[in-house]
């Protein structure tokens, strides 16, 4: 079936491009870890065991700002709540032995779900999910290592080359695709203002967690 061969090839290309696109974010995460005083193994532990980009960034930046352990964990978990929704939508495509499901679940991130959701059949969704997830996993961990190992201990270099500005740029780029919707623009605006107002008055990490309250404005419990 040449069609299937072609479709699979398209999926692999998509998966690899998505992985490569995340390379600078991986490096930025490594730099953030170095700035926060984490060692190479700790940084790689985040990238392989947590393996959830925005959560890792959030948790480590709370630590870097001097926030508490609890604030770092809560900020990270709130950002990852969406993988619960991804998991529910991917579940029918990810059947298999307990061990297989356990391993596949670790790849539950935005990108693997995005590559998968372009397809209808369970087999192709699973194929896209695995390729997308593994491609990101490899790039993400390699680039984390590059960021943390090559750039740690070069405090002046990070400052002089403006590498510290890659961290807000990475957060911004992660949010950007959502901002075409008015609803999300309101959320972003309210979240940003809340955080800005709270920074001087509450411990580090709390402004980020408090920004989640912006969601309540939209009353998501209402059915429409």
């Amino acid at each position: 079936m040449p069609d299937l061969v072609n479709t699979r090839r398209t999926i692999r290309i998509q998966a690899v491009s998505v992985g490569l696109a995340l390379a600078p974010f991986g490096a930025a995460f490594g730099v953030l870890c170095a700035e926060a005083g984490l060692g190479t193994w700790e940084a790689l532990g985040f990238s392989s065991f947590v393996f959830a980009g925005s959560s890792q960034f959030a948790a480590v930046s709370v630590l870097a700002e001097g926030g508490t352990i609890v604030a770092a964990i809560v900020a990270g978990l709130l950002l990852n709540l969406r993988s619960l929704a991804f998991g529910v939508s991917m579940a029918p495509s990810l059947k298999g032995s307990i061990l297989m499901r356990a391993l596949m679940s670790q790849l539950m991130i935005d990108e693997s779900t995005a590559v998968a959701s372009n397809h209808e059949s369970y087999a192709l969704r699973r194929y896209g999910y695995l390729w997308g997830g593994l491609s990101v996993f490899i790039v993400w961990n390699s680039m984390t290592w590059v960021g943390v190992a090559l750039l740690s201990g070069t405090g002046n270099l990070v400052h002089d080359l403006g590498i510290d500005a890659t961290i807000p740029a990475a957060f911004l780029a992660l949010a950007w695709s959502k901002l075409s919707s008015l609803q999300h623009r309101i959320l972003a605006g309210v979240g940003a203002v809340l955080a800005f107002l709270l920074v001087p008055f509450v411990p580090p990490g709390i402004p980020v967690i408090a920004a989640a309250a912006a969601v309540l404005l939209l009353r998501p419990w209402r059915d429409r």
Partner: protein
Amino acid sequence: MSDAVIVMVSLAIGTYMLKAFGPFFLANQRALPSWLKRFAMLLPTPLLAALVITSTLTNNDQIVFDARIVGVVAAIIALFKRAPFVLVVIIAAAATAIWRLLTGL
């Protein structure tokens, strides 16, 4: 154990439970309640926006206005011009670096 390791392990366990819930318990195509799904999908936007603010404007718990702002503004322009993400991040760093070089701030 260092703080970082405690956070890493807790977050690894927590995110794994979120990731694996569907594949382990819902293989039969049941769906999340729609309000919970909406909630989960809306949540990242205000959090990421708040993180943009704190990672641009804070230093040791204080609001500071420094060269990182130049980088973020450059990144916004690059995103409007639909630059690929790789470029957005590089532009942010370059703009900040140049500003620091020129102004010494």
